[in-house]
């Protein structure tokens, strides 16, 4: 009762307080600069997560390798990228051209060049942002995926091996699909977190959602309404992600005993909205 009363009071004050300027909020929700920023944020998040997950799988498998050198390499990577602030990594990749203006792949000591990249033109702020966020995310995803892999009973691997399945096939067909039940929830967390962390790239002048809002309010001084615009878009995106996560989790719950009921799950099961997201039965 008290909570409901407080909620009503807060919402009421927000609606009635003229300084929130809801008209301005509505106007800027679909402003082209904001929408372009939103697309950049979504691209940054998607690309960084793809890099992070792919890298995470490789690092996790490396860490579980019986070869100490391979396992050690993965450990050092995780230690380095998890142990330094992601903002520092963003600045580092942004300035990589100052350290390595050109990148040539060839024989050392003046041998012929096999490949040649010019970092000064290649590393745009956007690429630097994706690199920094993706490589950083890889270190976190590695630990999440490793936890998933070791959660699968050893007997599953043994049974697959006894049937003549190779190590790679066993990993792909037997262990990973079952590890997904443990991997998906924290990965959803990471994606949502990435959506917001990606706003750090405004430090290297990538015009993402937050930076787009800042550009507008530095001109119009409508700070609060524009921060609300950005926040509303972030909220909409995280809501869509949560719904997507529910379906991914349900897919990997195949054969598992007892699914937990969540408020979101109950609602989604009642109001089949899958067609809207392109899911098919």
């Amino acid at each position, binding site marked *: 009762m008290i909570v409901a009363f407080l909620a009503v009071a807060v919402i009421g004050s927000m609606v009635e307080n003229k300084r929130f300027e809801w008209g301005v909020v509505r106007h800027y929700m679909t402003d082209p600069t904001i929408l372009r920023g939103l697309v950049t944020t979504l691209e940054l998040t998607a690309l960084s997560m793809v890099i992070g997950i792919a890298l995470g799988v490789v690092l996790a498998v490396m860490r579980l390798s019986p070869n100490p050198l391979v396992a050690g390499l993965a450990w050092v990577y995780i230690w380095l990228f998890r142990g330094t602030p992601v903002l520092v990594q963003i600045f580092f990749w942004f300035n990589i051209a100052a350290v390595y203006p050109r990148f040539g792949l060839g024989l050392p000591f003046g041998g012929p060049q096999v490949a040649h990249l010019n970092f000064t033109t290649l590393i745009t702020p956007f690429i630097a942002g994706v690199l920094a966020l993706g490589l950083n995310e890889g270190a976190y995803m590695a630990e999440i995926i490793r936890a998933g892999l070791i959660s699968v009973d050893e007997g*599953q691997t043994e049974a697959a091996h006894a*049937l*003549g*399945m190779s190590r790679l096939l066993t990993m792909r067909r037997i262990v990973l699909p*079952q590890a997904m039940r443990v991997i998906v929830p924290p990965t959803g967390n990471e994606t949502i977190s990435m959506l917001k962390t990606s706003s750090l790239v405004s430090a290297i002048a990538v015009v993402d959602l937050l930076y787009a809002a800042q550009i507008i309010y530095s001109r119009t001084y409508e700070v609060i309404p524009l921060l609300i615009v950005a926040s509303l878009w972030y909220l909409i995106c995280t809501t869509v992600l949560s719904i997507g996560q529910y379906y991914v989790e349900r897919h990997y719950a195949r054969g598992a005993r007892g699914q937990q009921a969540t408020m979101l799950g109950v609602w989604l099961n009642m109001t089949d909205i899958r067609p809207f997201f392109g899911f098919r039965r």
Partner: protein
Amino acid sequence: MTPMVKAEAVHKSFGRLEVLKGITLEVQPGQVMCILGPSGSGKTTFIRCINHLEKINAGRLWVDGELVGYRQVGDKLHELPDREVARKRTEIGMVFQRFNLFGHMTALENVVEAPIRVKRVRKDVAVGSAKELLNRVGLADKYDTYPSQLSGGQQQRVAIARALAMNPKLMLFDEPTSALDPELVGEVLDVMRTLAEIGMTMVVVTHEIGFAREAGDVAVFMDDGVVVETGDPREVLVNPRHERTKAFLSKVL
């Protein structure tokens, strides 16, 4: 005739603990060998060495005339690459104490997985023979059921069908009924008995003295990493010659 399994002075240690202290035995094609013995005697370790789930430290182990998991160059053994070991394992079926069915697959999917992915059998062919196998172990109505919804006995019968789907020359059973409720033991033993009758070569680690006596051709009694006594099950299990066998049987029966 080449023996199906031939072990020659097989040694295995886990760290400093020596579990197998020189096992020498032979299983002829079509024979059912039952290995009995107290827990910790090394019988499970030995059966796992047969398909190279455990590496052996010394000795030689052949299945159907081929070394398992190793290649011999001169006097030395070199471990084979993963792919070669996997190929050899397709000839050897294994049934585990805790079933180890793939939890994310239905009974039918469990049975067709290896034939399709490893042997490259066409899907409709694999599904056809998988259904036949599941019918044979009495699970015609459970094709689409997940392991978590099956009883222990049903799970173990799916596991047997899964191993048979690869058309193995040899079947290994590692205490197949030890994790089952007493009333479910019979249904699994029945399936194993039928297999023995149609001439499958089997090595069975078990505590089921009755099964060993009726279905077994050879009984092996192991204790403390060595074979104590080998022979006709009706002899070894009814009139054991060794004190240790006698002591074990008096506790089990």
